[in-house]
Structures are given as structure tokens and as C-alpha cells.
């Protein structure tokens, strides 16, 4: 009986020892070796190799191109030497570059051609034009256009830029498929929109974030919130690009 108890104690003792060794090895491998500060910093990385490959590929007759690449290799050899002699910040020391504060560019309001920046990819939408304005103290951009794969579906997209935080977007397709929409005039923050067929005129109220029936209809302003928007699939299958 006592021998059985001793035997069981030995087995459990061995088991606990193995677990303890496993924990220690986990700590060593995970937190020390995997994240160890490298002893030698590789200051001749892939960049200089890229230029050496370029030099090998450039024909011998293209002297000016070869000279340019040779100059880059020389510049890299100098940088590699600087890298090797530079003292990296290895202690937990916060480094912050010292630079002059840049004032943001003025937000110019009005109606402009195309989109204000490369928001919609060329394969996504054709933006005819856009309106930039200030609504309730926030910068707002209103995009007018249509989808590339469904050019009959015109839409208005609105980006509201808070002073801090992520932009808030809204998507407002025209109820009927009238083709691409275009902003042709404004009355304050109410936009006059024309469809691609030049026959239909729509009105979009920016503070209300909705189409309205006329230039003078009174509507309640809306607070922009992120609305999960899904575009309903059309009968046109999404064509292979």
C-alpha cells in the first residue's frame, strides 16, 4: 500500500517537473530568443543588392545609366558605413524628431471638377464633380457621380470630416436610375443636381443629408453618423475586370 502511494507520488512529481521545465522553456524561447536584440546589425541590406542587380542588367553601352547606378552604389556604401557606426537607441528612451509645426492648408470651399483626391478608384466610380463646404463647423465634401460597373446608377456620397477622428461617410443613390449625377449650382448648402440625361434636376440638402423636393423645401438637419451601407446587387453581374 505504501509502495503504491510512493509510486503515485513519484509519477505526479515527474509530471510537475516536466510541466515546470516546459513553462521555463516557453519563457526562454518566446520572450528572450525570439525578441533578442540582434548582436550584429545588417547594414548592407537588400537595397544595395537591388542596385548591384540593376548594374548587372544594364547593357555596357548605356554609360550614363551605368554611371548613375554606380553613384547610387557608392552612396549606399557610405550609408552602410554610417549605419555601422551609428549608435542605435537601445534603452527605453522616447525619441521625438524636432520639427516646425505645419499649419494645415486652408479648406477651400466651392464646386470643383472630378473628385478632391483619389478616393474612388478608376475601376469603382466616375466622380463628375464635388462640393466642399463647412456645415455645423465640420468640413464636408459631397461627391456626385455614378458607378463604373453600373453607370445608370448615379449617387451622391458625403464625407464629413470631424476635427478629430475618422471621417464619416454617407451614400445616397438617386431613387431612379438617371445616370451620373453632377452638381450644377448651389444655394447655400443646398445643391442643385443634374442627371446625365440633362432632363432631370434633383436637389440635395447637405445639412439634412437627403434629397429634397425643391430648392426651398424646409427640412430638419441631420447628424452624420456612420450608417452601415450595403449596395444591393443589381441584375447586372459584377463583370470580370
Amino acid at each position, binding site marked *: 500500500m505504501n509502495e503504491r502511494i510512493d509510486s503515485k507520488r513519484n*509519477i505526479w512529481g*515527474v*509530471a510537475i517537473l516536466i*510541466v515546470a521545465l*516546459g513553462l521555463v*522553456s*516557453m519563457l526562454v524561447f*518566446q520572450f528572450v530568443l525570439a*525578441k*533578442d*536584440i*540582434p548582436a550584429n546589425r*545588417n547594414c548592407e*541590406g537588400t*537595397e544595395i543588392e*537591388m542596385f548591384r*542587380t540593376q548594374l548587372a*542588367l*544594364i547593357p555596357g553601352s548605356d554609360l550614363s545609366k551605368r554611371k548613375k547606378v554606380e553613384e*547610387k552604389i557608392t*552612396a*549606399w556604401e557610405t*550609408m552602410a558605413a554610417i549605419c555601422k557606426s*551609428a549608435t542605435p*537607441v*537601445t534603452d*527605453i528612451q*522616447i*525619441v*521625438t*524628431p524636432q*520639427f516646425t509645426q*505645419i499649419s*494645415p*492648408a486652408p479648406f477651400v470651399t466651392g464646386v470643383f*471638377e472630378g*473628385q*478632391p*483626391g*483619389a*478616393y474612388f*478608384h*478608376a*475601376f*469603382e466610380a466616375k466622380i463628375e464633380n*464635388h462640393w466642399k463646404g463647412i456645415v455645423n463647423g465640420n*468640413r464636408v465634401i459631397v461627391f456626385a457621380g455614378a458607378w*463604373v*460597373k453600373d453607370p445608370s446608377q448615379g449617387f451622391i*456620397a458625403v*464625407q464629413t*470630416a470631424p476635427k*478629430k*477622428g*475618422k*471621417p464619416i461617410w454617407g*451614400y445616397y443613390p438617386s431613387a431612379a436610375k438617371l445616370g451620373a449625377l453632377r452638381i450644377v449650382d448651389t444655394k447655400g448648402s443646398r445643391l442643385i443636381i443634374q442627371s446625365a440625361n440633362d432632363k432631370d434636376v434633383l436637389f440635395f440638402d447637405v445639412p439634412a443629408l437627403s434629397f429634397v423636393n425643391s430648392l426651398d423645401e424646409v427640412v430638419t438637419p441631420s447628424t452624420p453618423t456612420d450608417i452601415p451601407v*450595403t449596395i444591393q446587387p443589381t441584375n447586372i453581374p*459584377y463583370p470580370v*475586370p
Partner: protein
Amino acid sequence: MRKIIGKILPYVFTGGICFALIFPKLALSANASSLAVENLYPSPTGVIATPYGGNIESLTLIKVYIPLISKTFPPDPTTSWYMETVNTEMLLSLGCQLGNRDRELSGQQDSIVILDFDSPTYTSGVYGANLFGYGPVSTSAVAAAVKFFGAGYYNCVYPDRASTIVIAVGTNNCDSTTCSGAAIDGEYYAHGAAWAVMVNEIGSYFVTNGYYPQVRAYGASDIEVGWNDYYTTRQWVDGYDSINNWPMFNFGDAEGCPQVRTGENSGCANGWYQYTIWYVSGRGGVNSSSPLPLIYAKDGANGRQWYSLSAYGVDLQNGRLELQGAVTQHLACSQRICPPGTNNSPQEGYINLYSALNSDPDTSQPLKWSTDIGYSGW
């Protein structure tokens, strides 16, 4: 029976503990993914068509952690940013976020992050970028922003000095008709050179201050065939290539290009050809560009287009086109509206591209990076 259980139980217990210690990420893979990106992405499913017909089984996201080896497939994606500001406090914070993420992930990380400052500008004699309608800002301001991002990363990744990042400082080839803030008609070559000078300055800063090789800055451009013609776009790439000390990436598209191996220089959209995309994507190593394309389409089309381009390199140039990784726009599509079928998750985009390239032994290659892009805000 009790005796047998009593003898076996300790070994079962020990084995279970050891297994859990050695392979903890099998249990935690979903949570580990959430460290890298803002949203959880479902594992990709379904089959992927090969260019030769027939299907291959889609590759399932598997995360296995072994203490000495911490490779995941697909790689943990980073978040890249369409920059609507050059506010240095925000850039410091964004860099720190990435540093925290790399520090917390097991093993050595090798990541890419794109900071896309939008269309090129040339205003009052100053080269710069459009900041998606909130600019323009000068290249000096862009450089400052990138340095703060790098500093934020370097500070927050400590004590991990093994992980590395490449910051791809991006613009695009959108013309001034499509993107009204782009104002550099006639100055594309000069702007490309100015962008290279800026990247050189950022790179020298990182080298001199000891951040390199952990933190590097390269150039980048979102070259989309629908935004501008080849000849204008090539001027920018040639300008960059004239004076650069650092590589650059093309993180654009191959719209309208074939999705099968054609053996010839096939046409793409908007007057581009496969040769022209090959040119702006590095000319097989002759210039400093390489492709890191946008893989947005859920039907796999983009992966096949870039497979066809890589095969074009084999058939008509000096070898397969080597790609660096996949960019997706899942975050951007959760912020603004995107057409249906264009919001691949980073895992879907990566597997899409990887499967297409590796369906043909002539184009078979590893893919280093995965990144998903969204809008920075303010």
C-alpha cells in the same frame, strides 16, 4: 480500472499541459488575428479557379505557433493608411500602434506599411501631395510626418529590436481632371525626382539616427491604368528612378489585363499593355520599382491578372515578375461605400494572389507581405 486510470492520468495531464504550452496559438488564432487589424476577418472559403481551368482547394488560414518558429500563413496583415493629415502627433501615434502590435506578436515580424499622401502636386514652385482634398502639403511636411511615424514605431516596438518595417511613402498617378487636387501637368518627371529626394532624406535620417535597419522608408505610387496614360505615368517613375537611393513599390492595379498566360504583350484597359505595367513595376529589376498590387476583387480576377503579368515576364522579358505582397481595401470599404465584390479581406487578397502565382511553376514564388488600407482621419 481505477488503478489503470490512476497510472495513465498523470501522463495524460502532463501531455495535455505540454501540448497547450507548445501550441497555444491554435486555441487563440482568432484573437491573435485581431491584434493585427481593426476587424476580425472570417477565414476564406471556397475554391479558386486556375488559369488552366479546374479548381484548386482554397488555402485555409492556419495559425500554428511553435516557440522557436513563429511563421504564419497568410502573414499577419498590417494596416496602411490613406493620409488625410500630416499632423505629427497622429503619425507618432499610428507608428506606435504598429510598434505595439509587432512587439506583442510572437517572433520576429517583417512588415510593410503604406502611407499614401494622395496625388502629386506642384503649387507655387513647391512639390508636394494632395492629402485627399485637405492639402496640398509640401514634400518637407510629408517627410516630417513619415519621420514621426518611424519614431513612433521605434519607440513602441522596444525591446523587440529584431522586427522590421518598411514604410512605403506613397502618391499616385491620378491626373488633374479626375483628381482636381492633382496639379502637376507637365511636371511629372520632376515630381518623381522630388519624391525620390524626399525619400532619400527620410532614409538618411533613419540611418544616421540608428533606426535603420529596423525602420526603412521606400517610395511608392498607386499606379492605376484608369487614372492616367502610360507615357505620363512613366515620366514619374523615370524621375524617381533618376536619383533614388531607395526602392519603390507600385501598389496599383492591372485593370483590363488578361487573366491567363497569353504568351504575348496583351492589352489592358485605357490604352495600357502588359509591357507598360511591367515597365512601371520594375522592368524585371532594371529599375527600382516592384509590384505590391491592390487585390480587391472577391472573384479572384486581380490575382489572375498579376499571374498573367508575371508569366509575361517569363515569356517575353527576362524572367517572372517578382511580387512583394498583396494590398486590400477592406478597411476603406468599411469607411466609405465600395461596389459589391471589391472588399477582399487581407487574408482573401493574399491567398488570391498567392494561389494564382503558384498555380504555374514558372511564376511560382513566395509573397512576403500583406497589408490592408483605410482612411486615417484626423
